[in-house]
């Protein structure tokens, strides 16, 4: 049996379990992502009632034998990024990505910082696009996916800002023939994305398509429910 005290983390998801309990999925800096049973958390007099909601940042304590741990304390409400409207849906999208792709009990302080930053931005900025793109790229990096955006492997040449490329998430960029006009990506976009530079609004849609293609490989082609939902009202 292991006992863990006061670890900073976010709630990614919470679902009803048995009559009055819930199972929460949390993401912590020190222990990565893990599931915990919160006994009695849905009972009307529970001290956790209403507290164990997605996006909430708390200090968690738990005991663990076997697969699923048991929550023993959830203290010190560090913050509750107020996500509204589209921002809320973007937050659910982040959480779904994390639930589907992040590795269980694999500590990754960098990804933890990235997630916290993205949530904060979604609650405070009007335009979520840059925050989402930056997070998607960091998540791919955390999964060990190297996009090699600045090098054309096939031609063994560095990517040029003023040429166009075909991008395949498994092969990286390949210089496009001059006759190919559709589905190509400007070299400048690739270089800016490689440098985490999102300052050119005209490239954001292209960056999104590129990152989505790379994420789709990781997701095995399955569409995310939160994304589908957001698209149906957009």
């Amino acid at each position, binding site marked *: 049996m292991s006992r863990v005290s006061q670890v900073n983390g976010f709630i990614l998801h919470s*679902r009803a379990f048995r009559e009055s309990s819930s199972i929460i999925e949390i993401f912590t800096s020190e222990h990565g992502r893990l599931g915990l049973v919160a006994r009695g958390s849905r009972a009307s007099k529970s001290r956790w009632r209403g507290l164990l909601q997605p996006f909430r940042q708390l200090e968690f304590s738990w005991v663990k034998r076997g697969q699923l741990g048991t929550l023993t304390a959830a203290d010190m409400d560090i913050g509750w990024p107020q996500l509204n409207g589209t921002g809320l849906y973007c937050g659910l999208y982040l959480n779904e990505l994390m*639930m589907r792709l992040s590795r269980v009990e694999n500590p990754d302080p960098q990804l933890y910082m990235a997630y916290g930053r993205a949530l904060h931005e979604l609650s405070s900025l009007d335009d979520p696009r840059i925050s989402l793109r930056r997070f998607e790229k960091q998540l791919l990096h955390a999964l060990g996916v190297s996009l090699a955006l600045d090098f054309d492997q096939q031609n063994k040449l560095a990517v040029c800002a003023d040429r166009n490329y075909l991008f395949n998430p498994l092969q990286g960029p390949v210089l496009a023939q001059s006759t190919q006009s559709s589905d190509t990506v400007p070299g400048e976009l690739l270089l800016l994305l490689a440098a985490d530079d999102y300052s050119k609004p005209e490239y954001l849609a292209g960056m999104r398509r590129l990152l989505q293609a790379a994420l789709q490989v990781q997701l095995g082609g399955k569409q995310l429910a939160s994304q589908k939902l957001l698209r149906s009202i957009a």
Partner: protein
Amino acid sequence: MTEKRPLLQQLIEALRCLPGVGSKSAQRMAFQVLQHNRDGARELAEVLLESVEKIGQCCQCRNLTEDDVCSICINPRRDNSSLCVVESPADVIALEEATGYQGHYFVLHGRLSPLDGVGPDDLGLEKLNAAFVAGQLQELILATNSTVEGEATAFYIQSLAQKHNIRVSRIAHGVPLGGELEYIDQGTLAHAFGSRLLVDE
């Protein structure tokens, strides 16, 4: 043929399907009715059976009823230009008791939860959208719970309604974050309902 378990044991296990009933309470209930209240038990059994066979969803608002159209929907004195969306039948009762609301309801029987695979189809949102399209509605009150999923549901329905020029408000003030309507005291609920806010675009 497999050996049949004693009836008493079957009864005790069946009682455990009730919320808050563990094996000890189930045993106590079984002995109570068999020793002291067989008439009450008979009545319970009959009503229970009739209920599960006959109670379904109102074809207009999806509230629980044994009729095609429930007593609220069929009441001609209620305002059919106002609709209040709630997550559960218990919320309808809570609002009916705590407020003087005279409009109609729509019961979702849940909330949007993409990570659990609960989508618009599971909540009857097509039926709700049909009511928006029909054009009688002027006011829509979003009384889903103040949880993340309740907010996501409210935003989704708001987006549907605003395509039809319906005034949308969201209950506010006093409903604590993470709060579920059926557990809130009546005063708080009445205040929250009375001070609902228009939802910005």
